[in-house]
């Protein structure tokens, strides 16, 4: 049996009295795009820095390709990183920045120059190779940082919120660049981000962290449809969360009304369940469904052809509905309008606490 490329085994990291990472167990497989996601202070960056050797774990073991990394200096690991601040060397030009890793490995000048240039070309910025890095645009600098990390042809690339400084359009373009690169190279990417859209758009698997612990590991779809707990459901954001007590008929009495889920639940328990925003239907007249909520439209938000509608139901419950613009034709959408929201019992997902 071969071990996954990276194994975190009972890793604990303490800064003084503060436990930044608690008993972390995590495998990263060869060739996968793994995103570590969570709010700031959740331990995601510390986890990445431990993999790069910039922090030593207080307890536990980290193995890369079967070899323990404990006590291995950062420069002895082959775990190049793309930094949030990019950390380009301001006194070197673009090509010299890319050459840095090769130079440190003792490669001779001519070969070094050729390889650096090759990578700049590959990332589409060959023409800027002799430019001062401070004179490049955000996107160009980003590409220099990527080329610098990849030029040594590593088996794994670490990325620490690399797109957080870019504007929205550029983020989407760079996401495409990154996923394409990862597929072509076939190497492992470990990507730290607090942005759900970045993680969901690129990653094969997403690890959601909270307060130094893993809340859930899964494909973006798993995490979206079946969040493991309330924290994940809230963090993912595109979910509606309902809570209430299970009544004698097995339905749940929530503030928005009595709702049904497709699971048998013990009578009297207090439970929460989620319904993804894109699984809620809207109609003008009351439909013949079991789960119907009458709600007033508050506002709407467009992203491309997708619309997110925000409703308020009785008891002040907020409900989000996501739909294709086209699918809403014929439905009057003025704020204050009373509409009927419905969903299938099978669309619900009961949360574990």
């Amino acid at each position, binding site marked *: 049996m071969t071990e996954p490329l990276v194994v975190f085994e009972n890793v604990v990291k303490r800064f003084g009295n503060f436990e930044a990472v608690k008993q972390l167990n995590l495998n990263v497989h060869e060739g996968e795009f793994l995103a570590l996601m969570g709010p700031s202070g959740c331990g995601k960056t510390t986890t990445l820095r431990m993999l*790069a050797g*910039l922090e030593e774990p207080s307890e536990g073991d980290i193995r890369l390709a079967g070899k323990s990394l404990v006590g291995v200096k950062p*420069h002895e690991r082959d775990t190049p990183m793309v930094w949030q601040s990019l*950390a380009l*060397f301001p006194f070197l030009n673009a090509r010299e920045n890319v050459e840095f890793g090769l130079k440190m490995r003792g490669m001779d000048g001519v070969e070094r120059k050729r390889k650096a240039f090759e990578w700049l070309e590959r990332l589409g910025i060959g023409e800027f190779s002799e430019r001062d890095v401070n004179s490049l645009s955000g996107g160009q600098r980003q590409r220099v940082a990527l080329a*610098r*990390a990849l030029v*040594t042809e590593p088996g794994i690339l670490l990325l620490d919120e690399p797109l957080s400084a870019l504007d929205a359009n550029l983020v989407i373009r760079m996401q495409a660049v990154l996923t394409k690169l990862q597929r072509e190279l076939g190497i492992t990417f470990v990507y730290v981000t607090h942005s759900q859209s970045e993680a969901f758009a690129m990653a094969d698997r997403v690890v959601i962290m909270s307060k130094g612990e893993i809340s859930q590991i899964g494909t973006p779809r798993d995490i979206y449809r079946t969040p493991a707990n309330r924290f994940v459901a809230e963090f993912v954001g595109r979910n509606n969360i309902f809570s209430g007590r299970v009544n004698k008929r097995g339905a749940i009495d929530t503030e928005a009304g009595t709702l049904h889920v497709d699971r048998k639940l013990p009578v009297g328990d207090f439970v929460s369940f989620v319904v993804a925003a894109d699984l809620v239907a809207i109609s003008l007249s009351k439909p013949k469904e079991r789960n119907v909520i009458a709600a007033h439209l508050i506002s709407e938000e467009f992203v491309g052809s997708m619309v997110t509608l925000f409703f308020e139901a009785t008891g002040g419950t907020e409900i989000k509905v996501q739909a294709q613009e086209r699918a809403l034709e014929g439905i009057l959408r003025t704020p204050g309008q009373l509409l009927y929201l419905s969903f299938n019992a099978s669309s619900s997902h009961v949360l574990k606490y």
Partner: protein
Amino acid sequence: MKDDITTRWLLRIYTAVIFIFIFAPILASFVFSFNSDRFPTIPLGSFTWHWYVTAFSDSDVWSAAEVSILVALSSALLATAIGFSAAYTDHRYDFFGKKAFLVLALLPPTIPLVIFALATLGWLSIFGASGKVVSIIIAHTVLCVPFAMAVIRLRLNQMDPNLEPAAWNLGATEWMAMKSVVVPFTLPSIVAALCLTAAVSFDEFAVAWFVSGLNKTVPVIILEILTGNIDPQINAIGSVVFVVSISLVVIAQVLVMGRIKKPETV
């Protein structure tokens, strides 16, 4: 606060007067150095190179200049090296006794020079090291370290804290990262520190006077002439010293300010 025009102008004139007071002796010394009168007054006498000729035909002045330059260069190099190590330590590390470390690094300018001179004289005499050029270099290095450290520390503050880790991450050992990242990044401040410390050493007279013995520096010569009589040679020597130190300080400031005005965009 809105001022009326009178107050505004009064403040302006007042500030101008303060600057004139500060720069009057510097300018006067320049003017007097070309003035034929032994006791300059207004109206000024005629233009002359006499005092420069006298000063520069004096072999004592020349040997003092040699000592001064040797001392300034050596203590600038030593102090900048030590100041760099202290600034880097402060920038990167936290350790037991760090406060004491910083106090030790920054304390020397608060001790009056005469006292430090006396203490150094006594201390070096037990090692039989007083009265030598090297004694001046040692003492000047002590005085210059805080300046070098402050200038370099300021530059390190502007360095992305991930820059060094980025170098390690790309395969550089700590020493390689020092050579290929930290030193190039701080280079302007290193040059600035060299200039500034050379200027400090070049002008220092009290400690040099106590510990120099027969190896007088230029300021010590000035001090001795000053004790004797009013001799406009001082203006000539002083003007040259001014030009040297001001050039060093201006180079240093341009290097430091140029970088502050144009910080690297991250």
